[in-house]
């Protein structure tokens, strides 16, 4: 008893199972209503606040205070709030499970590798002596040869050369992936209010989803906007550039395609591009986009998403692109009319 560690880790595991179920129920809310921009990175923890749980008991209390408890199978609820920290990984895993999102297909395997060494194997020759193993072997030998014989009061340990065991390094190669994501926004329409909110939520989700899949330090996020011309902007400007009037979307697709080809190693990089706009483009502009997608981007992009945000009767980009890319593996076309459709948009883009 003197050296035992007092711990509640088993019980914490049961509670984690319970909150995992509850978080699964909360995932819809997190995606549709939550502010994912406040999530940290892979190592961070997310504070979750939920109704407190208590075993239902005969007690006094205001009727307004309590909610019915789940007899037998679970806890009752009380008006108090319960706060706890959940790992970023867990939240993202739950989101993936809930939305049935597949792990992203990573390319570039074998081209770039991270090499590390782990001391897993043991040998009779080497530099780093494994004292524990060596002692164990020496003890066994000493017992066998009666050098160590407590019954006769002999407590010697003979350390022989062949008892020595050394830690041997083992080369471990981990393929290193990198990805670049191009976010493309149409600033020629009124991107404010509800539109801006919807777009932000989806962009935030994509950022987190790709960071989670590749590791935040291995993903580069780049932001492009267009009206009648195309520009690259900083992340914080993406949602804040003012409307300049006119619209020609094919220019920005062309620009992204050029940047991807000229600035990255195509064979070892994973490319993603997500376009958000009202879809009100001229017919020939849409056809030009179709050509760029088909000829310049499709061959080496992992995923290209085109989303019409709050489309109007004039929106035709998605319908024109559907002629060529309906049910395409790489190019995904979708529309987002309100916040209830965010989940569907994410599924359309990634499933």
């Amino acid at each position, binding site marked *: 008893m003197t050296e035992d560690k*007092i711990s509640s880790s*088993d019980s914490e595991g049961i509670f984690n199972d319970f909150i995992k179920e509850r978080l699964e129920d909360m995932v819809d809310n997190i995606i549709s209503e939550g502010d994912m921009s406040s999530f940290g990175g892979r190592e961070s923890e997310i504070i979750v606040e939920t109704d407190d749980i208590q075993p239902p*008991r005969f007690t*006094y*209390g205001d009727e307004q205070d309590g909610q019915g408890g789940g007899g037998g199978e679970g806890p009752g609820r009380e008006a108090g709030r319960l706060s706890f920290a959940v790992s970023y990984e867990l939240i993202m895993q739950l989101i993936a499970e809930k939305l049935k999102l597949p792990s992203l297909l990573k390319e570039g395997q074998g081209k770039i590798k991270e090499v590390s060494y782990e001391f897993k194997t043991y040998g009779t020759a080497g530099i780093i002596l494994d004292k524990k193993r060596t002692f164990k072997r020496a003890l066994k030998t000493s017992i066998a040869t009666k050098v160590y014989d407590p019954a006769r009061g002999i407590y010697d340990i003979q350390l022989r050369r062949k008892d020595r065991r050394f830690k041997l390094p083992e080369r471990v190669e981990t393929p290193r992936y990198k990805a670049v994501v191009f976010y493309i926004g149409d600033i020629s329409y009124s991107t404010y209010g509800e539109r801006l909110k919807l777009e932000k939520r989806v962009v935030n989700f994509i950022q987190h989803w790709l960071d989670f899949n590749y590791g935040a330090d291995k993903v580069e996020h780049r932001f492009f906007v267009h009206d009648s011309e195309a520009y690259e902007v900083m992340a914080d400007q993406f949602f804040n550039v003012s409307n300049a009037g006119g619209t020609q979307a094919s220019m920005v697709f062309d620009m992204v395609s050029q940047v991807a080809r000229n600035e990255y190693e195509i064979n070892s990089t994973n490319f993603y591009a997500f376009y958000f706009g009202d879809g009100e483009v001229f017919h020939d502009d849409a056809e030009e986009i179709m050509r760029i997608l088909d000829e310049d981007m499709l061959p080496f992009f992992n995923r290209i998403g085109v989303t019409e945000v709050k489309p109007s009767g004039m929106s035709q980009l998605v319908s024109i692109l559907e002629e060529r890319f309906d049910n395409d593996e790489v190019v995904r076309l979708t529309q987002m009319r309100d916040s209830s459709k965010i989940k569907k948009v994410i599924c359309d883009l990634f499933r």
Partner: protein
Amino acid sequence: MRSIDTDLELKHLEQRVLHYAHDVFHRTLPEMRFFILEPMEFASLLHKRVYPKSPQNLWEGKEMISTRYRVDSGQESSLYYEVVQTGRPSYAYLNETNSPMVQASVMAHVVGHCEFSELNVLHDSNDDRTERVMYLVNRVDRSRQGMGEAHYRTFWNAAESLVSLIAPNSQFNLESSVDTDILYSDPLEKEKEKESSLLTFPYSYTLSEVIQKKENHESLLETDNRRKSNKEALNRRGYKLKAPCQDIMGFLRKFAPASTGERNILDYLYTVNSTSDFVIRTQIMNEGWAMYWEHKIMKKLFEEKACTGIIDYCKIFAGVCYPRPYYQRNPYHLGYYMWNHIEELYEQGKVSLEFVEETDVAKKAAWDKPSGQQPLKAMEHIIETCTDYEFLRRFLTTELIDKFHLNRIPKSHIPHLKITANDVAREDRQFVWVNPEPVKEQMLNFFTHFHRPRIYLIDVDFMEGGLLLYHRDDGRDLRRRWIRPTLKNINMIWKGPVSLLCRESLYTLSAGKFKNSTVEAPPFEHIVERMQEGRRPFVL
């Protein structure tokens, strides 16, 4: 967790504390074992009800994760001072972040708790308590594998609903409410013995008959029927309810039809939670006694310079013994000053008939006639015979209420307390002092209900094998939304219908269906009377 033997400084302090406790002050102590814990181990221990191990369960996990979050986010300090599990031996746990002086004060404090548990009338201390719980934990762990994870968790959660229905020290505890051939000797035999002794005692035979006839109006036939019915119930089930039973979990632990695994869970939860009944009934005396001895032993330690930091100690002591109003009573403060006051009373001979009968106020005020009785012996006798209720009833006077500031209320609390101008004795900028007379009554009222609903088991054959629970009306409603899930949980343990009689409602959960019907619940006294007469306490 490590033994105190691993820390030389603390080991020395432990020896000095025990020297004063044993050799100088001659305290009655069990063997005490001290251990040092890291802060989060300390938190875990508290959530395990002060035992080093516990079976895994949702609620401990919730409390621990919540504590961890509060500590990490700075909402809660991880600086807990002490916890002790009394018993023979007693296990006391020290927080490694405390200074040696604080550790010494904790050890001295623990001396008081251990002795109190040994001496007190409720007999809280028992042999190998911690070891017994460790054994129960192992049994539950083994049962978990047999029961399967899902059933284990479901049953545990259901059993948690019973924890507030533990009352081993109630007037209506298991022993006084249930006739059984399992727990005690056959009560019918006892009754028979009593009757036969009356019949075979020729000297008082006539007189007894006369008295008996006056006391007992039952005909011989009725008596015989009642005995037969009792006998039948005992033969059939092995127990019979003879009075309302407030220790409902104790009853279910013994008599609910349960598998070995389920019974192990009930045994464990009952055992680890039943000591809280002792705590709530003796908290003022107990904490006061601990502070009293902590103070005495620490003075000795400072005198011999075994530890330093007397100013810091005074600050901590003043913080712990800070007066609070009666509805937020601080047991450390109230208990400590009450014991000092009682010691003074005995020293000056004020606990005597002569003092009580003295009518001259001036003489009473200047009274100092030691009776020769050792104050400490008298104080020990109080522990051996009283709980908080009697302690306060006998020794808390209106003068003390005022002196201890029990009637001093912060002005910010006034709007919530329904205090009128007539209740106010005096006030200043910050506080209001209410009249002390009603304060004592309100403090004593706490011990009738402990601010919890009083629920009794009154029938075990209601609606053919169902349990009937009774809520003794305190003028307050139960939280209605929790009645159904609580009944459902009890139903899962009893495996039969369960009903609750509550004011004008009868809530029933049977075969998964919940029903609420309007009835007139009889007063508690009628129920007791009917049960004593061997009649059904409540009939639809």
